[in-house]
């Protein structure tokens, strides 16, 4: 019975007469445009988030262990040894962070001094491939934006100020040391490039002699998306002497905000499909009106009401389904063009990327599919009830 209903529904759908054709086309177009609209908008959000994740992962460590114990000389080497043996780790580095200031000419700015072992580039861990210049132990490496702001180039001298420097009868006085710029750091993250200075351990320890540093171990994993699970497994090994933070924790508010925005826009765009479904309801009403005599004949021949309703519902379903398929195809075509010609430009200094790629996900397609199918069924229900409610004799007598 269902196949027969399907056959009849297809024939009725393809029977275009005057205004029915225009309304069918508008209804179809409504589904196509709303499907493509939702998929593309979500694709922009997904693309933006994916790209942001990649940029963030490329410019920040996956896991940070911050030491909070009081015996760093024994605790930290123990942990570093443990990390060396772990196969999931791509690279790691240990360094101390001092808080100080930098001055060149009349410009002065607060900075983080990352003190590391300049003997080997590998010791710079995550920063190792982001440095332009040399690892001269007698000089400093400035964040690229900081260097630009200070107007400092390679070989220029800058003053590094330790706030708690020399002890005098009046208390601690800042200690200042002029050091040459031997390199610049290009992490891609404005916060880091604007406020970070890299120095060799020995030089920093002497300059910041009375300043207690924050000791951190930064880890990059072979699979950054396993950071949460890895952090969990790390916890019993490092004990309570380290605070473990993953890149996911650090960026949680940002991604949550983006997700909320994506959901909000998805909801608003859903209204487009609702409006398109109204068109389908109108179309099906007209089709039912046109075919009332046929409906009466089917009922005279004892076809159950469910058969008549199926004919109407299948028409709505087919129109929506084909509209959905064309909408998906259109959105993929637009995705290709937008990505090929990099059509969505954004300011790199703010968004870490110069253009936003579109990335349509299977999850989005499935969500839109379910939504379109649900709404098309809903749109077909009222006309289908109307189709079976009409009195057979009245239809035949009026014909």
């Amino acid at each position, binding site marked *: 019975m269902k196949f*027969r209903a399907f*056959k*009849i529904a297809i*024939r*009725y759908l393809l*029977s275009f007469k005057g205004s029915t054709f225009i309304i069918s086309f508008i209804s179809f177009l409504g589904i196509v445009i709303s499907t493509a609209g939702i998929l593309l908008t979500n694709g922009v959000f997904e693309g933006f988030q994916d790209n942001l994740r990649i940029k963030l992962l490329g410019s920040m460590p996956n896991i940070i262990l911050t030491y909070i114990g009081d015996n760093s000389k024994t605790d930290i080497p123990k942990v570093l040894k443990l990390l060396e043996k772990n196969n999931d780790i791509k690279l790691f580095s240990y360094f101390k962070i001092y808080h100080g200031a930098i001055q060149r000419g009349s410009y002065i700015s607060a900075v983080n001094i990352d003190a590391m072992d300049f003997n080997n580039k590998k010791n710079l861990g995550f920063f190792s491939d982001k440095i332009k210049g040399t690892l001269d132990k007698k000089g400093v490496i400035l964040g690229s934006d900081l260097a630009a702001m200070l107007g400092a180039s390679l070989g220029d001298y800058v003053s590094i100020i330790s706030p708690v420097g020399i002890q005098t009868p009046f208390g601690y006085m800042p200690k200042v040391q002029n050091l040459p710029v031997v390199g610049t750091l290009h992490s891609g993250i404005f916060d880091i490039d604007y406020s970070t200075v890299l120095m060799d351990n020995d030089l920093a320890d002497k300059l910041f002699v009375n300043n207690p540093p924050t000791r951190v171990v930064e880890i990059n994993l072979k699979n950054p998306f396993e950071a949460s699970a890895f952090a969990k497994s790390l916890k019993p090994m490092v004990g309570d002497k380290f605070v473990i933070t993953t890149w996911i924790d650090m960026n949680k508010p940002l991604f949550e905000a983006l997700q909320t925005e994506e959901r909000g826009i998805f909801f608003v765009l859903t209204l487009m499909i609702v409006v398109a479904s109204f068109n389908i309801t109108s179309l099906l009403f007209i089709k039912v009106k046109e075919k009332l*005599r*046929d409906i*009466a*004949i089917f*009922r*005279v*021949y*004892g*076809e*159950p009401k469910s058969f008549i309703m199926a004919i109407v519902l299948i028409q709505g379903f087919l129109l929506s389904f084909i509209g959905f398929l064309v909408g998906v195809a259109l959105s993929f075509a637009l995705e290709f063009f937008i990505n090929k010609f990099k059509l969505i430009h954004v300011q790199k200094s703010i968004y870490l990327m110069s253009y936003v790629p579109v990335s349509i996900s299977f999850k989005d397609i499935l969500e839109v599919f379910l939504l379109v199918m649900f709404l098309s069924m809903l749109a077909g229900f009222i006309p289908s009830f109307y189709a079976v409610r009409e009195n*057979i*004799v009245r239809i*035949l007598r009026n*014909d």
Partner: protein
Amino acid sequence: MTESVVELKNVSKRYKDTVVFENLNISVKKGEFVGIMGPSGCGKSTTLHIIGGIDNPTEGEVYIMGVKHTDEKKIAKLRRKYISFIFQFYYLLEDFNVLENVALFGDMKKSLELLKFLRLEHRLHHKPYELSGGEQQRVAIARALVREPQILIADEPTGNLDYKESKKIFSLLKSLNKESNITIIVATHNEELKPFFDRIIYLG
């Protein structure tokens, strides 16, 4: 004694203030070829609609193959299996060709056989509007017979046809009645067709 396939007991039909008929009693036996005759407006079509279970009486009881008219689901099932209709205006499905118009209501092989029997094999893939009135009515007859009904209800089946074509249609119905023992109830106002009927019920 042959069983009654249709029984109308004290049936009345009224539309608001208009009385179509009152206290109508009809009993049709299996295999009968019954004619319902009377002037226009006497309620011939309404009677057929009630006999076929597509309309309900205002008063009285109707039994179709032993099922009371109030049991709508069972009556619809009876219509699907045992009762077929032929109308004056044929009511063929415009979007389907001749063969589909018949096969949609039954088996494809049987449809082809019937259309061949009704001399429509050259029209199988034509749309209804491409056929003459007589041809359209023969398609409607094929549609009515494809389910091998036990009761055939025909409302003015030759109302739109000339006498020659009407006679052909009635001869066909008569032969079906004799050969397949189908109960046929026909409403007509054409007095010339009276000889075909086993029995005539006059209304009005």
